[in-house]
């Protein structure tokens, strides 16, 4: 039988163009904050899991310098990769080590430096995250293209509009402007989003997340250690679901939702014993605005095809039926690939502890959900937390 696993400490670096710091220096910011938050030192950590995609970086084995600089030795590291869902895979790996009884305290560190190369290089590296030989090699498919395929099909089938996509950006910029750790610090107007230049039609500049640097860390512990550390009322991992989809996008039946989301969510809901209506705050994978709209539907927050309506009605703002990405999301907080999934856990842990400040979501059941996609649904992770 697997053991209960708690989240006892979280940290998050400032996200953005971090030309002031190296990979290990931004990871240090997140690790230090997480250790201080847990009230423990490096000595208590038995396993370190480092999530970093790393394909844009000059440091080929990023986990090693990250661990040395954070003052860990002899505790791994394990380096994990699941594209843009790498952070969730790191949390899952740390979770499994504790749930299985192998260790009692583990840290998941997510870190990515993306701004050290130019945009055409970053676009070409990112585009290889689909399938290189059969797609990027011939057609130069960037990640914006992949999500634009979904946007075109979703708009065609369900009548989702460019205005509804822009509404997601407006919401997420609003919350980013209230989050000092977010890449973007200003609100945007709907008209500006609609007038912004086309990146990959139908997606415009404000439909796309920025290219960001950043790190996040989460310390996980067994129930015994929670008692030993005298941590009262921690946040627990209630269930994790995972799934995947084809590498070749042409082998998928349609382009209006991500089957990896549906499968991972069903698994997580079942493991946690909760239903979509029980979730009170969610972090969803909004690398592009269409991704947030599809996530509403595929996670069961609304019916398929009604995601555009949900944002139009304002139901995903604080005070709405299901507040989503109240830290700014990938869209405006930034999306440093390896850090994103861990940063979602950072935000939700703080929300569940009522430490959200101006962005605090009112909670009754204390159930939160993180949804993290790698590639275009090539990987899917859904993590449910409760307190």
């Amino acid at each position: 039988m697997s053991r209960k696993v708690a989240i006892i400490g979280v940290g998050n670096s400032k996200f953005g163009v971090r030309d002031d710091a190296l990979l290990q220096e931004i990871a240090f910011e997140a690790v230090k904050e997480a250790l201080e938050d847990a009230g423990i030192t490096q000595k208590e950590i038995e396993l370190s899991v480092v999530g970093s995609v790393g394909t844009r970086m000059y440091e080929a084995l990023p986990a090693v310098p990250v661990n040395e600089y954070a003052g860990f030795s002899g505790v791994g590291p394990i380096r994990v990769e699941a594209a843009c869902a790498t952070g969730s895979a790191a949390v899952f790996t740390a979770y499994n080590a504790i749930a299985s009884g192998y260790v009692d305290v583990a840290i998941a560190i997510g870190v990515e430096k993306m701004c050290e190369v130019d945009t055409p290089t970053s676009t070409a590296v990112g585009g290889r995250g689909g399938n290189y030989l059969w797609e990027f090699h011939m057609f130069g498919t960037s990640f914006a293209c992949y999500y634009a395929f979904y946007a075109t099909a979703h708009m065609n089938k369900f009548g989702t509009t460019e205005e509804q996509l822009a509404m997601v950006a407006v919401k997420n910029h609003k919350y980013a402007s209230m989050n000092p750790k977010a890449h973007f610090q200003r609100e945007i107007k709907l008209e500006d989003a609609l007038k912004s230049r086309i990146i990959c039609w139908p997606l415009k500049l404000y439909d796309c997340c920025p290219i960001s640097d950043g790190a996040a860390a989460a310390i996980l512990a067994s129930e015994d250690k929670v008692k030993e550390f005298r941590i009262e009322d921690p946040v627990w991992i209630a269930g994790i679901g995972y799934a995947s989809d084809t590498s070749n996008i042409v082998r998928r039946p349609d382009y209006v939702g991500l089957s990896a989301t549906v499968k991972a969510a069903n698994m997580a809901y079942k493991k946690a014993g909760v239903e979509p209506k029980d979730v009170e705050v969610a972090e969803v994978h909004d690398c592009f605005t269409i991704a947030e709209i599809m996530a509403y539907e595929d996670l069961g927050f609304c019916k398929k095809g009604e995601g555009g309506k949900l944002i139009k009605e304002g139901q995903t703002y604080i005070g709405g039926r299901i507040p989503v990405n109240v830290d700014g999301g990938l869209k405006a907080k930034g999306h440093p690939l390896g850090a994103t999934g861990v940063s979602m856990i950072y935000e939700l842990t703080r929300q569940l502890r009522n430490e959200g400040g101006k962005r605090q979501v009112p909670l009754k059941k204390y159930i939160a959900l993180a949804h993290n996609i790698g590639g275009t649904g090539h990987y899917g992770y859904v993590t449910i937390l409760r307190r």
Partner: protein
Amino acid sequence: MSDAKKIENPTIMSRKLLFLHKIPILKTKKFWDGLKEGKIYATRCRKCGQTYYPPQADCSKCLASDMEYFEVANEGEIVTFVASYLVPQGFENYQIPYIIAIVKTSNELKLMGFVEGIDYKNIKVGMKVKIITKIQSDGFPAIIFIPC
């Protein structure tokens, strides 16, 4: 996408590192040769009948490695499409916007390709296209969709 902020903090340049890969195509050579001859090939497993596009030499379903090639139909309809203004490294000579579509052929396979001969604003999902191949000016092969 990229933040317009200029580099302000002191930085140093890394050593140069260039990757160019030699990609083995032995097991799908007929496909790559076909593109030069205006033909697009998919494969079908002789043991279980599973079809594959892109073509592959081994059957992911039944694990047999006995494939036959067959030609993809030269007509289909657009399932979804995009018009990209991004220029990834390696595509500097391509005219923007380039239109990429996923097309379902009359023999029920889906292909990716460039759409040519039409402004993207005039393209509709469901539009019928002819499917051809082309060698681009940079020597790379491509699949092209021409609206009927």
